[in-house]
Each structure stands twice: as C-alpha cells, then as structure tokens.
C-alpha cells in the first residue's frame, strides 16, 4: 500500500541496492557539507557535479533530475524573490543553489529507497531507546496505521464533498471539515474497537493487522440531520 503512494522510483542501480541506513547517513553528511559552510561558488560547483553524477549512477537520468528541479520551482521562485529584495544578487543565487542541492540530494534518497525500508531503518535506529521504556513496536504500529488511514480519509473527504454537493450546500469549509472530522474520529474509534475485539489489549504487545476496517462514518453521516 505504501508503494502506490510513495515517491520511490524502482530500480536496481548501486544506489538502490545500498542499505537505507547507509543512504540516510550519507544524506546527513552530504546535507551538512552543502549547507553549513558559507556559500561558495567552487564548493557548490563541485557539489552540483556530485549530485548530477549520483543521479546518473542511480540510473535516474537527467530527465528525472529536471523533473525534481521543476517540482520545487515555486519554492525556489518564492525564496529568490525574498532574497533579491534584501540580499545582493550573487549571494541570493548561491544560497538558493545551496538549498536546491540539499533538496535534490534528499530527493535522491527518497527516489532510490522504499518507504518500508526507511521505516525499518528508523525502527532499528530507535531500538536502543527500548531500554528507557520506549515501546518501539508501537511506533511502527502507529506509522503503519497512519499510512493505511491516508487513502481511507481521502475517500471519506470525497464522500463528504459529494454529499454536501448533493444537498446543494457546497460552499461551507466549516461544515465539510466538521463532517470529515466526525467521520475520521468515528473510524479511528471503530478500528480501536475492532483491535480490542480481536484481543489486542491496551497494554499487550500489538499484533499487526492486515486489511483495514471500512470507514462507515460517511454513509451514516448522510442520514443524520
């Protein structure tokens, strides 16, 4: 289910095959190298060449690199406008380039790593905290539940919108969000009840459930009032 929603670009390049934890560490170091020193044309030129090389090694191609830059064009534009008002143009150009490189480097990790692999790396990274009473398996459970809830809540939102439109009261944001919220809360409580009914107690080790409970809120909402 993560697959359909994710920004991951499947592949078999050396970068795809690296462990998620290695790539995250690399991103951390790369991000620091690009962002911490004062913006400097030579350093940023080398970094830019490195980023282009990495996109080629990942077999994503320059087209994907272009797509990534295109994807953040508005952010860059807004930042540049702000900078050009208050900063000399060459400083503005360098800091914007620096930001763009950091974003492109991060996108590279996102493109070459499955979300589930990153989640696993995070869970493993948190494991030492178990000693302090943090229940890391619960963190994994909540992250999984949230991923599954996204399409459900989106469905709920479109159902609410359709219901509002059918009633001819399409305009009010407030009414729409209230209905969405009530539906979502009801769904959350239904899932909790279902989990409890399957024997998962509050203080027990949780079991991952496959499949999800259908949102019943929206259909019921139409009948109220």
């Amino acid at each position, binding site marked *: 289910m*993560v697959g359909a929603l*994710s*920004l*991951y670009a499947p592949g078999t390049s050396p970068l795809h095959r690296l462990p998620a934890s290695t790539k995250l560490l690399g991103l951390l170091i790369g*991000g620091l190298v690009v*962002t911490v020193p004062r*913006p400097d044309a030579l350093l940023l030129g080398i970094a830019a060449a490195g980023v282009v090389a990495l996109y080629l090694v990942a077999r994503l191609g320059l087209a994907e690199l272009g797509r990534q830059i295109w*994807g*953040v064009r508005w*952010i860059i534009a807004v*930042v540049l406008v*702000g*900078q050009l*008002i*208050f*900063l000399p143009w060459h*400083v*503005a150009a360098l800091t914007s380039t620096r*930001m763009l490189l*950091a*974003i492109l*480097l*991060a*996108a590279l*990790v*996102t493109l070459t790593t499955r*979300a589930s692999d*990153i989640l696993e790396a*995070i869970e493993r990274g948190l494991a030492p905290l178990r000693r302090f*009473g943090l229940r890391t398996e619960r963190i994994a*459970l*909540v*992250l999984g*539940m*949230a991923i*599954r*809830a*996204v399409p*459900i*809540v989106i469905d709920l939102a479109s159902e609410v919108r359709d219901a509002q439109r059918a009633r001819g009261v399409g305009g*009010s*944001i*407030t*009414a729409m*969000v*209230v209905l*969405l*919220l*009530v539906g*979502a*809360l*009801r*769904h*959350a*409580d239904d*899932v*909790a009840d279902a989990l409890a009914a399957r024997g*998962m107690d*509050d*203080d027990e080790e949780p079991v991952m459930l496959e499949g999800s409970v259908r949102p019943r809120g929206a259909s019921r909402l139409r009948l109220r009032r």
Partner: protein
Amino acid sequence: MSESRPFSLSLSDLTRIAVFAALVAALGLAGAVSLFGNAVPITLQTLGVMLAGTILGAWRGAISMTVLLALVAVGLPLLSGGRGGFGVFLGPSAGYLLGWVAGAAVIGLIAAPRRGARPRAWRVLVACLVGGIGVVYLIGVPVQSLVTGVPLAETALLSLAFVPGDLVKAVLATLITSAVAKAYPAAFGGRRAASSPAEPSISSSTTAS
C-alpha cells in the same frame, strides 16, 4: 497522567493519532482554497494542525504531527501540493513543519488543560492564535532565515503575507472544534464509552452549516 508509566496511550489514542496524521495529509491534498477572491490562496493543512491540538490534546496532537512528519520524511507525498521526502526538511519551510509539532502541543495545553473536558470557545481561539500561529512562526521564521540567508527581521516581514490566512484558519478551527464537540461528544472523552448522551453541551452556539 498519574499512571505508573509517565505517559501511556490506549488503543483508541493510537488509532486517533494515526487517523489525524492522515487527516492533515488529506487536507493538503484537497488543494489550495482561495479566500477573499483569489488574493490569498491557502491550504487547509495548518487548519488540521490546529484541530489536532484542540481535539487530540497536547501530547497526542504533537505525536500525531510527528507521525505525519515521519511519513513525509520516509518519502510519502503527504504535504500540500504532493510534496514529501527528506528534501522538505532542508528547504525553507522546514521550521514551520517542525513548528507543527510544538504548535499542536501548545494548542492542546491551552485549549484543554485537563483531559476529557469540553473545550471552551475562547480558550480554543486563544490556543489556535498562540500555538497555531505564534509558536509555528517562532520556529518557522528563524529556520527560513537560516536556509534562505535573508536576515531575520526581513524574513519575518515576508512571512506576514501568510498571517491573514492563518487568522482565518484559527477562527475556522474554533468554530469546527465547537461543532465537533456537539456532533461527536466522544471526541473529547477519550473513548466512546466514556461519553454519556445525557451530558449537556456547553459549547457555543455554532452549528455545522
């Protein structure tokens, strides 16, 4: 929080945290809503952050926003406009995103100091203004200044463009919280079983439509 554990979450806490993270994501996918004609396009995502604080409370609201940011960090396009991935935490809006966590916590603390209490409209409004706008900008503006290289005071000036939209959202969040308290009283009682139908509503007279 007087249990043996300093902080413990029930099953319905966990599912609500998960669903609220998804809800804020869904509000972002809904696209920008244009208020006042087309002058200020705003997304409803920060409205969702405010509601996470007012409805889930401080701790669970903050955890819920952390869950959302974790999913964004691992590469799901859950921010408005389909943004996601590690990159957003290196961009100019990184501080505002981190501000969502602290903001939701402060909103919860001000709006409902005690769990299970029905929120009062004035407290909710103050909470959304202080937590949803004040705290978010307090973290967001310095980080934006750091990332873009534009000095702090000037960055603050630039960020003023978003304040009118956020003020509208604080008012909307207050109206919505009162309406939810009426439509689904269990929202503030923790579990459904904890709410009694006979309980009189003390929220203000706003209705859903």
